C-alpha cells in the first residue's frame, strides 16, 4: 500500500513537529509513508470564505498530487472533512467533469490520522508513552463532518502513563471557524474563552486535539491567559515513546 502524508499547509509552515511526528508514528507502525513535494493545501480556506473559483486550482493540485496513492493520511479532521464534503462542490462548480470524477475517486482514500490508525491499520495501542494529565477536545469537523467518534479517545486510552480527564461541554465549538476568527474576532474570542474555562476546570496539563487550527486559537487564548496549560496535537502525543523519554532525561 502506497501511503502519502498530506501534512496540511498550516502544519508545514507553522507546526512542522506535528508533521514530523505523524511521519514518525506511521513509520513506527510499519507504514512507509511518502511526502509528495507537490502538495500545498486542501483549499478549505478559500471554500469556507466563499472563494470557490479560487479553490479550483488548489483542488486540482491536491488531486494531481495525491491521486496515485492508495491512501492519504492527514493530521487534520478539518482538512479531511473538506476533502470528503467540499471537494465535490468545488469540482462540480468548476464545470470540469474529469476533475469532478478524479476528485470523487480520491476523496474516500483521504483519512484523518485517527481514522487511518483505527480503521485502516486496525490499531489502538500505538506503543506510545506520555506521562501526564491530558484532556481531549474533539474538534467540530472531525466530530461532525467526518464522524471520527471516539477513535482519538481509544488511541489516547492506550498511551502508557497518560491520565485522560473528561472535558466539560467537550463537543462545543472552540470558536475558531477559519476566517470567522478574524471576521468576527470578538465573538470568536468569547466562545474560546468558555472553552478555556472548561479546559482549566479539568486540571489537565495538556489539551489534545486533532486539528492545529483549533489548537492555535485555544492555545493562543491559553497563553494570553498565562494559564500554564499546553496544547498538543494528537500526533505529537501518540508519537512519544519510552525511548524519547529516556533520551530527554
Amino acid at each position, binding site marked *: 500500500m502506497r501511503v502519502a502524508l498530506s*501534512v496540511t499547509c498550516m*502544519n*508545514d*509552515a*507553522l*507546526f*512542522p*513537529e506535528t*508533521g514530523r511526528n505523524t*511521519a514518525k508514528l506511521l513509520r513506527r507502525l510499519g507504514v512507509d509513508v511518502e*511526502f*509528495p*513535494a*507537490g502538495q*500545498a*493545501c486542501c*483549499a478549505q*480556506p*478559500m471554500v*469556507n*470564505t*466563499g472563494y*470557490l473559483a*479560487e*479553490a479550483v*486550482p*488548489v483542488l*486540482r*493540485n491536491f488531486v494531481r498530487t495525491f491521486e496515485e496513492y492508495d491512501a492519504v493520511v492527514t493530521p487534520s479532521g478539518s482538512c479531511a472533512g473538506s476533502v470528503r*464534503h*467540499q471537494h465535490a*462542490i468545488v469540482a462540480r*462548480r468548476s464545470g470540469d467533469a474529469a476533475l469532478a470524477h478524479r476528485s470523487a475517486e480520491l476523496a474516500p482514500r483521504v483519512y484523518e490520522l485517527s481514522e487511518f490508525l483505527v480503521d485502516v491499520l486496525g490499531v489502538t495501542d500505538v506503543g506510545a508513552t506520555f506521562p501526564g494529565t491530558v484532556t481531549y477536545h474533539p474538534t*467540530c*469537523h472531525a*466530530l*461532525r*463532518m467526518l464522524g471520527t467518534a471516539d477513535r482519538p479517545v481509544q488511541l489516547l486510552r492506550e498511551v502508557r502513563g497518560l491520565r485522560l480527564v473528561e472535558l466539560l461541554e467537550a*463537543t462545543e*465549538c472552540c*470558536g*475558531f*471557524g*477559519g476566517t*470567522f476568527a*478574524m*471576521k*468576527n*474576532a*470578538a*465573538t470568536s*474570542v*468569547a*466562545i*474560546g*474563552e468558555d472553552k478555556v474555562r472548561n479546559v482549566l476546570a479539568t486540571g489537565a496539563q495538556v489539551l489534545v486535539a486533532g486539528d492545529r487550527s483549533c489548537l492555535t486559537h485555544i*492555545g*493562543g*487564548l491559553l497563553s*494570553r491567559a498565562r494559564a500554564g496549560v499546553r496544547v498538543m496535537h494528537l500526533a505529537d502525543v501518540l508519537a512519544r515513546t519510552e525511548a524519547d523519554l529516556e533520551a530527554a532525561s
Partner: protein
Amino acid sequence: MTGTFLGMPPFPEAARRALEDGTLRANLDHATSTIRAKRDAVVAEVEDWEELRLAGAAIKDDVLLRLDEHLLTLETSLRAAGAVVHWARDADEACRVVAEVAKAHGAHEVVKVKSMATQEIGLNEALAAEGIDAWETDLAELIVQLGDDLPSHILVPAIHRNRSEVRDLFRSAMGESGVPAPDDLTDDPARLAEAARLHLREKFLRAKVAVSGANFAVADTGTLVVVESEGNGRMCLTLPEVLVSVVGVEKVVPSWQDLEVFFQLLPRSSTGERMNPYTSTWTGIHTGDGPQEVHVVLLDNGRTRALADEVGRQALRCIRCSACLNVCPVYERTGGHAYGSVYPGPIGAILNPLLVGPGADRQVDSLPYASTLCGACYEACPVRIDIPSVLVDLRAQVVDAHRGGLPGPEAVAMKAASRVLASGRLLALAERLTTPVLRIARYVGASAWTRGRELPAAPAETFRTWWRRKEGTS
C-alpha cells in the same frame, strides 16, 4: 409599538456590542443551556428519532418539489370551507390585505397569535401606520412589545430578559395600553403570569379581529394548524368575529397524516416537551362557532426565490423550532438582535439571504459569515437542513455578487493565496517569507487575531525543508 430591525449594522459590529452586555450574556447562557438539556433528554427517548428526521425532511422536500400543485389544492379546500384566499407576493401586499380586512370591520385594534410570518412582513408597524393597534398575546411577544424591544429568539422572543426586568417592564408599561400591572407585582413567575393574564383577557374579549400565522396548512382539507404552549393563541382563534391568517407558502403539507411526523419533531426540538400543550386546528367557517369570517393570506415574500436556489431551498423545510439557535455557539454569545432580523441564529443566517438575495444589503451579506461552521445546527435540525453547506454556498454567492468591481483586500489575498496554494513549489517559496511575516505580526500585534489571542511562535524550519534535509528527496 415595537422597534424595527431596519438599518441594523452588519453582524460583526452588532455582535461586538451585544458581547459587551454582561447581563445579556448571562441570560442567554442560562436559557440556551436549559433548553438544550431539556431537548437532549426528550429526543433521547425516541428510538426512531433519526428516521423521524428523515421522514420530516422527505415530506417537506416532496411539498417543495410540487409546491404549485399543493397550493392550488389548499386554495380549493380553503374556499370550499368558506375561507377567503388572498395571494401576497410581498410584505406590502400581505399587510394591505390585513389592514383592509380590519378597516372593513371598523376595527382599530387586532389581537395577534404569535406568528413569525407577520413579524417578517412588519405587520404591526404597517397596521400602526393605518391607525390600527396590533396587540401581541404570546407572553414573550407581549414582553417584547411592552418594552418597545425586538425579538431575540424565534420561540422565546424575550430570551434576553430576566424575571426582574420583566417585572419592571410590566409595572411601567402595561397601564399605557390596557389593564395595568398591580403595584405590588413581584418577579414571582405566577404573579407575572397573572398580571399578563388580566391584561390580555380584556383584549381577547374586546377585539373583533384576530391575526394569526400557521405552523402547517393541510392541503386536502384546507385546515390551518397552530401549536403553542400558553393557549393565548386559541383565545384569538375562537373569540373574535374575524380571523386573518398570514401563511408562508412553504407551510403547506399534503394531508393530516403528515402532521403525525411534525407533531413529534416540533415540540421535542423546540421546547423540549414530548407534546405541545395546545394544538389548534380550524377549517374555514362553522356557523355559530368561532370566527364567522376567515381570511387566509398565502405569502411568498422571497420564498419562491429561495426555492429556486438549488442548495438553499432546503431552508424552506424549516418548521421554526429554533433548535439550531439553542445549540449555536455564536447565537449563545451574541443573542438574536445581532442578526438584524426576526429570524436569528443559524436558520436566520441562511433564510434571510435566501429570501432577499446576495449583494443587495451589507447587513444581510454579513449573515452567512456569522457562523463557525461547527455543524451543531445540522445535527440538531429536526428536518435535517444542512445549514453549514448552505452557509458556504451563500458565502460563495456573496463573494460572486461583489466580483467585477475593485477587489477588496480579502479578494486580493484569496487570489494570491489561490496561486501559491495550488503549487508545492510556490508554497515552499512563500514559506521562506512566512516566518519573517509571522515575526513582524507578533511584533506589531495589531491584527484582529492578536486582540484576544497570542500568535504561535514561528518555527526555525518548515516541515517541507526538514523532510528534504532528512530524506534528501522531493
